């Protein structure tokens, strides 16, 4: 633990009585929105539980979008920094916290892709992740490898829809809020993406020796 963090924790302990700690022990089944409210009010426990509730899904989402473990880790870290920093500004009641959090994640991914390859499209950027990058992330079988390769051939919006639906586990309505689209549009994107994947994988099967 760095000296700064140690000092921060000591200082936090000294000020503890003034901090609005929200007791969550009475809310063992608190939902994400409830945790977000408590976290915004200053509850450390709520922040930790919020992290536990979101980290795997945010990591999966970013990993599916950038495909390199190091990038996914960096982006996930950045997303949680932003979530914690902006928690006080989250407007409760306007939209679900998850949609807000994944919007931050989505923006971070887009920012990352632009920064890495400012002159290439998201499509082109995705092509570079195939092979070496994918190998860095656990792959269990060839079908999944093939599937991930096929995903990179989708349009950016289709990739986004697939990542939000399958990696982040969001409903069409939630994904629509993240993407700033209508739920029907997201369903359409997902449907076409799956149809394209099916087609490409079928082609791959036929061309296999």
């Amino acid at each position, binding site marked *: 633990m760095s000296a700064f963090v140690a000092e*921060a924790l000591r200082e936090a302990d000294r000020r503890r009585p003034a901090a609005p700690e929200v007791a969550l022990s009475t809310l063992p089944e608190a939902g994400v929105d409830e945790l977000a409210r408590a976290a915004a009010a200053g509850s450390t426990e709520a922040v930790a539980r919020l992290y536990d509730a979101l980290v795997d899904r945010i990591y999966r989402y970013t990993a599916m979008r950038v495909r390199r473990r190091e990038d996914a880790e960096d982006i*996930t870290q950045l997303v949680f920094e932003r979530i914690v920093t902006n928690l006080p500004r989250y407007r409760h009641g306007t939209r679900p916290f998850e949609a807000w959090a994944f919007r931050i994640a989505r923006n971070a991914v887009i920012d990352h892709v*632009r920064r890495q390859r400012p002159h290439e499209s998201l499509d082109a950027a995705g092509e570079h992740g195939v092979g070496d990058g994918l190998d860095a992330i656990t792959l269990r079988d060839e079908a999944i490898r093939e599937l991930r390769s096929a995903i990179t051939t989708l349009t950016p919006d289709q990739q986004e829809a697939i990542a939000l639906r399958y990696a982040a586990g969001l409903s069409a309505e939630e994904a629509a809020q993240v993407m700033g689209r209508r739920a029907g549009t997201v369903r359409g994107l997902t449907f076409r993406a799956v149809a394209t994947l099916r087609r490409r994988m079928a082609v791959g099967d036929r061309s296999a020796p």
Partner: protein
Amino acid sequence: MNRAEDRSAFDDDLAQLLERAAADLRPDPLYRRRLRADTVNRHVALREGLIAVPRARGEMGRVGRAVLYASLATALSVSAVGAAAQDAVPGDLLYPMKLQLEDIRLRIASPALRHDLLAQALGERLDEVEQLAQRGEWQRAAGAAGAAEAAEGRLSTDGTVLGRLDADEMQRHVILLTDLLADAPASARNGLERALDAATFGPARGASQDPASTSNGGHAGEEDPQ
């Protein structure tokens, strides 16, 4: 997850494969624990004021800007009218004066302050779009996006690089504009998306200077293929 409605349309085997591929993407346990501690520590440090909370939208951020405003307020001596013009938004009577004052400031400011002024001008234009949208004046908000684009163009032409504070401010604009975009009527969406594009300029430029200071980008260029 509400995917039942889609499941019927998809091949179950492919859907299962997608879920399995996603499930394979797991963070390293050590990384996961370390990030958890970092996140909680950061929360505590922010809560207790041990690290700076980024400025709220619209706040003046730099000493240079404060000095600049003080000196220019004197130099321009337009008193109450000038002050009132600072709050004007596109379509207001005093809005042209606001733009003229900004232009004069830019002309007489030292080169060292030019970057601050250009970045501030972009922030002002985005503020205006957001204010109008929050008031429900969607068409005026969409119309104001052009000025945001122009401000972004000047910043781009100037070749300056945003610092961390500017990048943080742009990040807030991106988040707010994205929120507003979700609520915007179809007729205003294009304008807000243009403003969002302008807001994503800053973070990208800041990133080239200090990757740690980058903020997020928007979804510019990702048109709905439908």
